[in-house]
C-alpha cells in the first residue's frame, strides 16, 4: 500500500469484529488523511470503542477480527499482526489516549520516567539522559507547570487533568502519525477539559499527527474535529464534515442524536427531544437497517440493509428514508 504517498495515514477496509456468530462491528471503509482530525461518535454499544481498539490491535483475544487496517509507514496489515509486530507499531506509529488517565499510568513509576521509557523503547532517543530531558520538554509542551518538578512526581501526586496531560505527552513522545483518543476528557471537569483539548489539538498539529477522536459528546467533537463518522449498531451510518453532518444531518439517527443533545431545544410540549427506545444489546439489533426499530421514518423496505448514499465513503449516509436535506436540525 502506498498510503504515505497519497497522504493517507489510516486506511480501514471491510473491518469486522465479532464474537462467535454475532457481529459487533462492520465498517466498510474509512480513511484518515495526514494531520486530519476525525471524530467517531455514537452511544454506548455503537461499536466506536471496539473500532478504535481494532485500529490499535488491542482487542480482546476472544474476538474475531477480519478485514484490513493499514497505517502509513507500517509495511504490514494491522489486522492479524502478532503482538510482537504490533508492539513495534504501537507507541511509535500510532498512540492512544484513554479515558481514565489513572489506570493508563503505572502508579509505581515517576511520570518523567514513563515518558522517557516510551522514547527509549522505540529508540527515538539514544541515551537515558537524552530521553529524560526530552521528557521534561514534552511535559512543558503539554503545559504542565514546573515540568522538572512534575517529572519526578508519581501519578497519584498529580491532579486528573495533569495526569491526562502526562498520558498525552507519552502518546506524543515518538511523533506518531495517528493519535487514537477514546473519550479523553469525559472524566475531567469542564474547565480542565477545555485546556486538555487545547493541548491535544495543538500537540497533534505541531507534529502533523492525525486524530481519531472517539466520544459521545457531540459538542466536543464539533469543537475538535473537521470530519465526523456516526456509528450505530456497529455500522457507520453517516459521515461527512462536521459542518455538514451537524447542521444538515441526513440519517434519522444523527438527527435524533443532535436533537437529544441540544438542551436548548424542546418540542411543543416543552420537553427535550429524545430517541425512542434504547440501544439494543449486542446481537439484538434488527436485520437490515440496524436503526429501524427506533427510527421515526422506518418503513417495510428498511428490512433490507440500506446502501451507502453519497459521493464517497467520507461523505454520505446509509438510509432508505433520509431526513430531508433542507431541514436544519439541532439549531433550535
Amino acid at each position, binding site marked *: 500500500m502506498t498510503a504515505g504517498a497519497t497522504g493517507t495515514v489510516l486506511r480501514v477496509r471491510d473491518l469486522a469484529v465479532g464474537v462467535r456468530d454475532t457481529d*459487533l462491528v462492520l465498517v466498510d471503509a474509512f480513511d484518515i488523511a495526514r494531520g486530519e482530525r476525525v471524530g467517531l461518535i455514537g452511544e454506548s454499544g455503537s*461499536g466506536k*470503542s471496539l473500532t478504535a481498539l481494532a485500529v490499535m490491535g488491542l482487542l*480482546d483475544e476472544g*474476538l474475531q477480527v477480519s478485514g484490513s487496517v493499514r497505517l502509513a509507514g507500517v509495511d504490514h496489515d494491522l489486522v492479524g499482526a502478532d503482538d510482537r509486530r504490533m508492539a513495534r507499531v504501537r507507541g511509535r506509529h500510532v498512540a492512544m489516549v484513554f479515558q481514565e488517565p489513572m489506570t493508563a499510568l503505572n502508579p509505581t513509576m515517576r511520570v518523567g520516567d514513563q515518558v522517557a521509557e516510551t522514547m527509549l523503547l522505540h529508540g527515538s532517543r539514544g541515551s537515558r539522559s537524552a530521553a529524560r530531558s526530552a521528557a521534561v520538554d514534552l511535559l512543558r509542551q503539554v503545559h504542565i507547570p514546573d515540568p522538572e518538578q512534575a517529572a519526578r512526581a508519581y501519578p497519584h501526586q498529580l491532579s486528573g487533568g495533569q495526569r491526562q496531560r502526562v498520558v498525552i505527552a507519552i502518546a506524543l513522545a515518538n511523533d506518531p502519525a495517528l493519535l487514537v483518543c477514546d473519550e479523553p476528557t469525559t472524566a475531567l471537569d469542564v474547565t480542565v477539559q477545555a485546556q486538555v483539548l487545547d493541548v491535544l489539538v495543538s500537540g497533534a498539529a505541531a507534529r502533523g499527527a492525525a486524530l481519531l477522536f472517539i466520544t459521545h459528546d457531540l459538542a466536543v467533537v464539533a469543537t475538535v474535529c473537521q470530519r465526523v463518522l456516526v456509528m450505530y449498531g456497529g455500522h457507520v451510518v453517516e459521515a461527512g464534515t462536521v459542518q455538514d453532518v451537524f447542521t444538515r444531518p441526513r440519517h434519522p439517527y444523527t438527527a435524533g442524536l443532535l436533537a437529544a443533545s441540544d438542551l436548548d431545544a424542546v418540542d411543543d410540549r416543552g420537553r427535550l427531544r429524545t430517541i425512542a427506545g434504547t440501544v439494543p444489546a449486542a446481537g439484538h439489533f434488527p436485520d437490515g437497517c440496524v436503526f429501524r426499530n427506533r427510527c421515526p421514518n422506518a418503513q417495510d423496505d428498511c428490512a433490507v440493509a440500506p446502501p451507502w448514499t453519497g459521493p464517497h465513503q467520507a461523505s454520505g449516509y446509509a438510509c432508505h428514508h433520509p431526513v430531508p436535506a433542507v431541514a436544519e436540525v439541532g439549531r433550535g
Partner: protein
Amino acid sequence: MTAALAPAVARGWRRRRNPSLVVGAVLVALVVLTALVSFVWTPHDPTFVEASVRLRGPGSGYWLGTDKFGHDVVSQLMVGARTTLFVGVVAVSVAAVLGVPLGLLAGMAPRWTGELVMRLLDLLLAFPALLLAIMLGAAFGASTLTAMVAIGIATVPSFARITRSGTLQVMSTDYALAARAAGRRPSAVAVRHALPNVASLVIVQASVSFAIAILSEAALSFLGFGTPPPTPSWGRMLQESQELLFVAPRLALFPGIAIALAVLGFNLLGDGLRDRFDPRLEDQR
C-alpha cells in the same frame, strides 16, 4: 462505555468450561459418595480385629490387604472418609460461624473498633493451629471434635479477614449509601447488602479451609492428638503404618493417596469456584 462493555460482553459469551471446577467437584463427590456408601456397606467390619488375617497383601478377599491388627484397609478407608468429611464440616463451620460475623462487624463498625477486632484476630493467627489443637486436646481430651474445633478457631482470622475486606468494599459502594439514605440501619445494610455480596468469597475460602482441615486432622491423628481408636481415620492409618514402613509400605501409601486426592479435590473446587464467581461479579457490576 463501549470499551468497558465489550470485554464484559465477550466474557459473557465465552463462559468456557472450567476444568479445575469439574475435576475438583468429581473428587469431592467421590469422597462424599464413599462416606455415604460406608454407612450401609463395607467389605468387612472395619473395626473387627481378626488376628488370623494380619498384614495380608492385596488379594481377592481383602482388595487392598489388611493392617497389623487384621483390619480391612478398604473398609477403613471408606469409614475414614466419614471422619474426613466430619472434620472438614466441623472446622469450616466453626471458622465461618465465628469468622463471618466478626468480619462483618469489623467491616461496618467505626474504624477503631474494626482495627481492634482485626488486631486481636492477628494475635490468634500468630498461634500455630496445631499447637492450639494439642493444647485443647491436652485440656479436654483428644478427640476428633476438640481437634477440629481447635482447627476451626485457628481458621477464624482468615474468614474474618476475607469477610471484612469484602464488607469494606460493599460499604464504600453507592448502593450501601443508598440503603442508608433509604433509612436502613448499619446492621441491616451489613446483613442485606454486604453478606450476599461476600458470600462467594466465603464459599471459596470454605473449600480451601476444608482441605487444610483434612490435612490438619491427618497430622494431628498422626501425632496422636486427633481421632482416637477405634474410629478409623486416614491420619491414624498413616501413623499405625509407620513402624511397618519397610515391611508393608502399601499401608502408608493408600491413606496417603486418599488424603492427597481429597485435599486436591477441595483445593481445585475452591479455585474453580473462585474463577466461576469472579467474572460473574464483574459482569454484574
